[in-house]
């Protein structure tokens, strides 16, 4: 703000973030004071149960690298819900972003996102994730299962800008209708001999030419990658799949990088969980199922608190990840961004608080 001239600074005193954001939206803009909003500009059915959204982010977007994810937030029934999705294209010259959303059965946000039409506005966080493709020579084995294809899709597309890299992509789905980007991938492989492509369908009665039907095991890996010790293996998919890939490849491949979605494991009451306090940079073990305020105080911390009965909201802090429980009504709280009143809430899994 120092560079601003004094009239601009005076105006800044009259306008706050909520006021700016409100009028910006009223005039149909997605510019915001300090948040990254993005407008859906195109929507494409990617498979039987997945949709790709092309998004135009506002100036607050900080960029990303292929293989990274972003927290996407949208309002469902008046409540903001946040989930992480991968960018499924490398950064584009026009600044547009593509995210692919698989509709999860009963999934609040995924159902709402799959129904979005061009013009809708969502919010994005900052890109994160370490599964990237360094410039320069490299040989890769990409193992993707189900929605695990999404980060590996942007990495496969990124091969085009990385002439010294070559890759084999193996993509598992149960049925052909669930494959995302099948045509796009075939065209990419046709254009780019450095990309070898294998679709594996585990529950498809009829196989087409080039399609495999085998689960990931040592034999398949030997067939697809006889030179495993010269490859960097990136695996992405359900936890079991990534564990299996790790078992087969780690220690043998040049490098192994796995990413799996892990729902937090609930700790039984009386067990111990790890609570990470992000703002104060501390991490400590507390008993699960007891009020967090008391548990933190027992360890010598003095978080801000008031009435100690869950009414004054003084001790509320934001849940970053993990599962908490409201001890007054038994309700579990797992949605990132929820406010947790630590005087009447307990940790039910390892959790991170913005405290």
């Amino acid at each position, binding site marked *: 703000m120092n560079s601003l001239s004094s009239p601009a600074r005076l105006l800044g005193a009259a306008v706050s973030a909520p006021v700016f954001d409100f009028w910006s939206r009223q005039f149909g803009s997605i510019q915001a004071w300090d948040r990254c909003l993005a407008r859906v500009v195109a929507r494409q059915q990617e498979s039987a149960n997945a949709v790709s959204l092309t998004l135009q982010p506002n100036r607050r977007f900080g960029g990303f690298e292929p293989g990274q994810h972003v927290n996407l937030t949208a309002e469902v029934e008046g409540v903001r819900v946040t989930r992480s999705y991968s960018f499924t294209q490398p950064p584009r010259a026009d600044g547009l972003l593509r995210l692919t959303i698989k509709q999860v059965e009963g999934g609040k946000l995924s159902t709402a996102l799959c129904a979005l039409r061009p013009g809708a506005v969502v919010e994005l966080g900052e890109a994160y994730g370490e599964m990237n493709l360094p410039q320069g020579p490299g040989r890769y084995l990409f193992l993707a299962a189900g929605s695990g294809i999404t980060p590996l899709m942007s990495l496969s597309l990124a091969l085009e800008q990385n002439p010294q890299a070559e890759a084999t992509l193996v993509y598992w789905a149960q049925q052909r209708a669930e494959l995302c980007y099948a045509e796009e991938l075939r065209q990419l492989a046709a254009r780019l001999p450095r990309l070898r492509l294998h679709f594996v369908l585990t529950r498809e009665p009829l196989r087409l030419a080039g399609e495999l039907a085998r689960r990931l095991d040592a034999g398949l890996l030997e067939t697809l990658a006889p030179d495993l010790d010269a490859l960097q293996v990136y695996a992405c998919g359900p936890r079991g799949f990534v564990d299996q890939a790790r078992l087969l490849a780690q220690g043998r491949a040049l490098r192994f990088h796995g990413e799996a979605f892990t729902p937090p494991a609930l700790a039984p009451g009386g067990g111990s969980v790890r609570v990470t306090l992000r703002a104060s940079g501390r991490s400590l073990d507390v008993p699960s199922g007891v009020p967090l305020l008391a548990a933190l105080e027992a360890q010598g911390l003095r978080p801000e608190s*008031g009435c100690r*009965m869950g009414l004054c909201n003084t001790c509320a802090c934001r849940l970053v990840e993990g599962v908490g429980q409201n001890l007054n009504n038994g309700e579990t709280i797992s949605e990132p961004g929820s*406010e947790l009143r630590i005087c009447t809430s307990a940790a039910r899994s390892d959790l991170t608080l913005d405290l």
Partner: protein
Amino acid sequence: MTQATTLNRPLSAAEMDAFGQELDALRSRTMAQVGAEDARYIRRVVAAVRYIEAAGRALLFFGAFPPAWVLGTLLLGLSKILENMELGHNVMHGQYDWMRDPQLNGKTYEWDIVATGDNWRHTHNYKHHTYTNVRGADDDIGYGLLRLFPEQRWRPFFLFQPIIAVIFALLFEWGVAIQRLELGKYFSGRKTKAQLAEEFRPLGRKMRRQIVKDYVVFPLLAGPFFLPVLLGNVVANIIRSLWTYTVIFCGHFTADAETFPKSVLLNETRGHWYLRQLRGSSNLSGSKLLHILTGNLSHQIEHHLYPDMPARRYAQVAPEVREICTRYGQNYNTGSMLKQFGQVVWRILRHALPSRPGVVTPLVQPVGEAA
């Protein structure tokens, strides 16, 4: 205040528990319904605040033309009232935290008033709502300036109270702003100058921001009409102060509203806490518009029972609360704004002079005594 003795009956320990459970159950039933409708409502309130403010400020730019000045000032005052009461006050209680919208977050919301949100969260959300009407713990009783209850010690200073109360009403937003500083402690030597300066810093920043916005930037934007705009802003802020003062004083200082000694806090049960909230609060009856303009603090009783429930739900739970009160023999203190504020004015005048406490019904029935 002898009339209080006939209105309420003391509850036995068992009744107190049952009373608490009924109110807890009502809370759970209502909170289970909170959702999209409430989100839509608060968004509409935000939009109303913004549009009314814009209309008011736009009209004030033509403030050289008297009707535009009057209407512009009224609209700006109205916008500030809505922002403070139905939006700021309620959001800061965490009533909309479940939406997870950072701009409607109870811990971070900053309202359009000289008091900082943080100070208010302490003096109001924590102290006033936890220790409602407990003498010596709830600074809202007379704001350390007025004697409203006979239990407060009389000093000759209070003879000036009728005048002080009017000045306080006109400058109410400033009074609330400095409440957390507890200047009394400084003047009596229990707080150092350095401590006070430290506590004042964030408040000073907020005050400067509000002054610059209302009394410098917007008047400057009006160019030659600097003065009408400045004056309009001053008057709008005063209108807001008078209105909030009236509403807030009606909430706890009517004839039958009770205060409590600190001893009630010892081993207070949930039911006991509810009962204290009920006996210390009073409602305003009126139209839907009145409820909105008071930020639903017209339902002060319901607000005190359920401070973090979206305020638009108070009207819905009120009949049930009233019915529960009737069954437990408790007075449900409500009346028109005129009646309730008349009682407040009487308190201000009456207790400017020495007065002695009457006999007050205890909250709890002494052991061994039949109801």
